[in-house]
């Protein structure tokens, strides 16, 4: 059965209802459909925006004991786990984490067999060629491939279908209430997989968790992850994991769209710049470490500044040292003019940079390594790549916090089963961002979200298929 576009939702006979339409949802649906189950995917986005945040991803972090597909060398369990421990500072569930890591190796061939294509590490990301397998064309191409595979397996897909309520009777799921293109529907199923992401697109929720400053955050991913199902399940006493007040945020171009700006809004200029706040003052060591190891803290740093904004300032010496970004920088011949063009005090900016320039010391500048070219007697210091900003024209980028994902999620066990305070649910499983907080309790590890989604999507699909 090929289900193009709109599927009429008949109300009976669904073995499995998958809530969500990203990577984890699709993996679950495909696995269950391959076991002969009748599967319905309810995706809250319209078709063109299907796939949740998976649409914006680009790679999959994968354990491997030798060269595997596009991955070079080896990346074994302990190293992978150490990397995870480093970013989470121990806020993880070791059993689930090791399960995810071990399973990732089996996932890659499975992904290829289900239409996903990989390519060697993209230019500018060579540091990931051993650990992360890049999707040819990125995450949306992966999502397209999975939808095509699901379609061939007879999975029914409904777009514009926002699930409002997952109905539980004691420990059993019975039906979902869903709004499909403005119409309320009640759809019954024998089991459910919840894979509808986090709540980062619900600005009110973010504001409750973060305070009013969250109104100035940009959301890097899909506007459809509003956490409706997560909230509904928490209201029904589902057990949660992850700090409810925390989200992962990076510093992105302040001119990015409110939602869905994705990869192109990132800015890699910070280590070669100085960053000032609205008042023209510096507030953190821009050269603390190489950018891949530091960009994740800058969202939080900027979020703590007045009006949640920062300004990264470089001169013409540094313009070609980082990846181009989607918006051209603001450009001026003097620092005063640059400050005014950015909407901050030109005088203050000039003063800050004069102090910084005076603190710079002679030495050899190496853009690609920690060069130790540090300021002296400056607070906060800049400990690497500290070259005077003195060669016009000058350039400035506005920085804002860009939210990638939230940590609060449903607690699951190693079978992806959802638990309430009265015990495990008989026929509800969760996969993807909605449960990722169980494993990634803090921090960020490139490509690990897709690993969690794929591993737990497959587990959830298998469990649901066995149940039906």
């Amino acid at each position, binding site marked *: 059965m090929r289900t193009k576009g709109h599927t009429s939702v008949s109300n009976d006979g669904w073995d499995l209802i998958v809530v969500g339409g990203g990577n984890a949802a699709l993996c679950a649906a495909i696995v269950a459909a391959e076991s002969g189950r009748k599967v319905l995917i309810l995706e809250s986005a319209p078709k*063109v925006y299907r796939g949740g945040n998976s649409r914006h991803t680009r790679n999959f972090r994968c354990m491997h004991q030798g060269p595997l597909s596009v991955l070079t060398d080896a990346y074994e369990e302990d190293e992978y786990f150490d990397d995870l421990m480093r970013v989470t500072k121990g806020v993880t569930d070791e059993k689930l984490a090791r399960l995810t890591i071990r399973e990732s190796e089996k996932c890659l061939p499975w992904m290829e067999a289900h239409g996903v294509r990989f390519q060697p590490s*993209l230019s500018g990301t060579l540091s990931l060629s051993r650990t992360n397998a890049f999707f*040819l064309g990125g995450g949306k*191409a992966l999502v*397209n491939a999975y939808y095509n595979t699901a379609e061939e397996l007879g999975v029914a897909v409904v777009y514009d279908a926002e699930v409002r309520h997952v109905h539980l009777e004691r420990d059993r799921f019975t039906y979902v209430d869903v709004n499909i293109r403005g119409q309320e529907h009640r759809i019954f199923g024998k089991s459910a997989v919840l894979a509808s992401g986090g709540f980062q697109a619900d600005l009110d929720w973010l504001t409750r968790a973060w305070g009013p400053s969250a109104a100035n955050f940009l959301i890097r991913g899909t506007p459809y992850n509003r956490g409706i199902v997560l909230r509904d399940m928490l209201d029904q006493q589902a057990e949660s994991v992850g700090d409810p007040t925390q989200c992962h945020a990076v510093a992105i171009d302040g001119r990015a769209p409110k939602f869905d700006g994705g*990869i192109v809004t990132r800015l890699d200029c910070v280590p070669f710049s100085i960053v000032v706040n609205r008042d023209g003052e510096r507030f953190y060591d821009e050269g603390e470490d190489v950018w891949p190891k530091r960009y994740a803290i800058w969202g939080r740093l900027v979020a703590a500044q007045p009006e949640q904004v920062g300004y990264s300032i470089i001169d013409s010496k540094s313009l070609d040292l980082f990846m*181009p970004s989607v918006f*051209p920088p603001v450009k001026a011949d003097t620092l005063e003019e640059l400050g005014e063009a950015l909407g901050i005090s030109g005088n203050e900016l000039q003063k800050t940079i004069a102090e910084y320039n005076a603190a710079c010391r002679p030495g050899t500048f190496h853009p690609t390594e920690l060069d130790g070219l540090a300021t002296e007697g400056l607070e906060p210091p800049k400990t690497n790549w500290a070259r005077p900003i003195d060669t016009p024209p000058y350039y400035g980028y506005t920085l804002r916090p860009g939210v990638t994902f939230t940590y609060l999620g449903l607690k699951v066990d190693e079978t992806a089963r959802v638990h309430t305070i009265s015990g495990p649910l008989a026929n509800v499983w969760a996969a993807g961002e909605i449960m990722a907080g169980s494993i990634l309790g803090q921090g960020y590890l490139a490509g690990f979200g897709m690993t969690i989604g794929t591993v737990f999507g497959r587990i959830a699909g298998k469990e649901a298929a066995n149940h039906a």
Partner: protein
Amino acid sequence: MPEDITLNPFSEAIDEARRQVEICNACRYCEGFCSVFPAINRQRAFADGDITQLANLCHNCRGCYYACQYVPPHEFALNLPAALNDVRQQSWERLARPQAIGRLFHERGVALAAALVAGFAVLFALMAVLQPESGEGFYAYLSHGVMVVVFTPAFLFPLFAIGVSLRAYWREIGGAPVRFGHLVNAVRSAGRMRNLDGGQGQGCNFEDGDRFSNRRRVYHQMVLYGFLLAFASTSSGTIMHYGFAMEAPYGFFSLPKMLGVPGGILMCIGTAGLAYMKMSADKHLGSARVWGGEMAFIALLFFVSLSGLMLYMATGTAAVPTLLALHLGAVLAFFLLMPYSKMVHGFFRFAALVREAQQRDGMP
């Protein structure tokens, strides 16, 4: 250095393509699909000539469109295949000499059809007025001398016009002196239509949304190789005629026929396939303005090859004079329109592939 084409009416399309290319350069997810993205990634700023080169390098496989997070209704509104197609199309029209007729036949299938009818008329008139006293095969209806007098200039003039256009293109994109290795590289790429293989041999996204297939690539190569066989057939006939005094008609087991018949069959199947696929492809991922002209061009190629095959099959029958006029009339129209129809894409694309080989080598 690539030129800046200031103050020209085509700059709007170039500006739009540049806007999109700069977004692509900040993303890079599509790097593995074709040569266009690595070419983008080598640069930071894009002069008009750079955009024209990227546009001619793009084979319109559409992989990047379906993989893109930023297609409309997203506010970045990327549709790179269409943006580059517009620039590419306009570059052919802008660089055509004489420029005055650069646009007509691309846009208007009707104009192309009119040219075809005119080609028929010329041939019928020639055959009526200059009927030879004697001659064998189709030389009984039109003498070899007349054919040479008509078709030699009709073939050489378009080649000259295309040569002039390519020179202007090369100047515009800032091409370097060509080395043999670059040509070999370009022939290899075109020979396999590497830029339509999706990067891993899965093909392109053309006739069935985001699903990949190699159908378009296969049909295109049937036309390309069919055309080259037909061309080789004519060339071999010319050599046999002048070099060895072996005059047409040739039997089936002669070089012209052994090359020409399979060539004609390949072209018939290929053009029919391309036309059929074009019906189900999304117009808006190409240059929608020239859809009709492209269709008419495919139909013309189909007619050229079909009438050629029919002419051969009709050997010795009363249908020969009519078929001969139809076939030669179509060939005449096809030759004369080469610089002003979709046919010119092959020459520009080849030049773009040569330039890409240079730039991959790090040449300025």
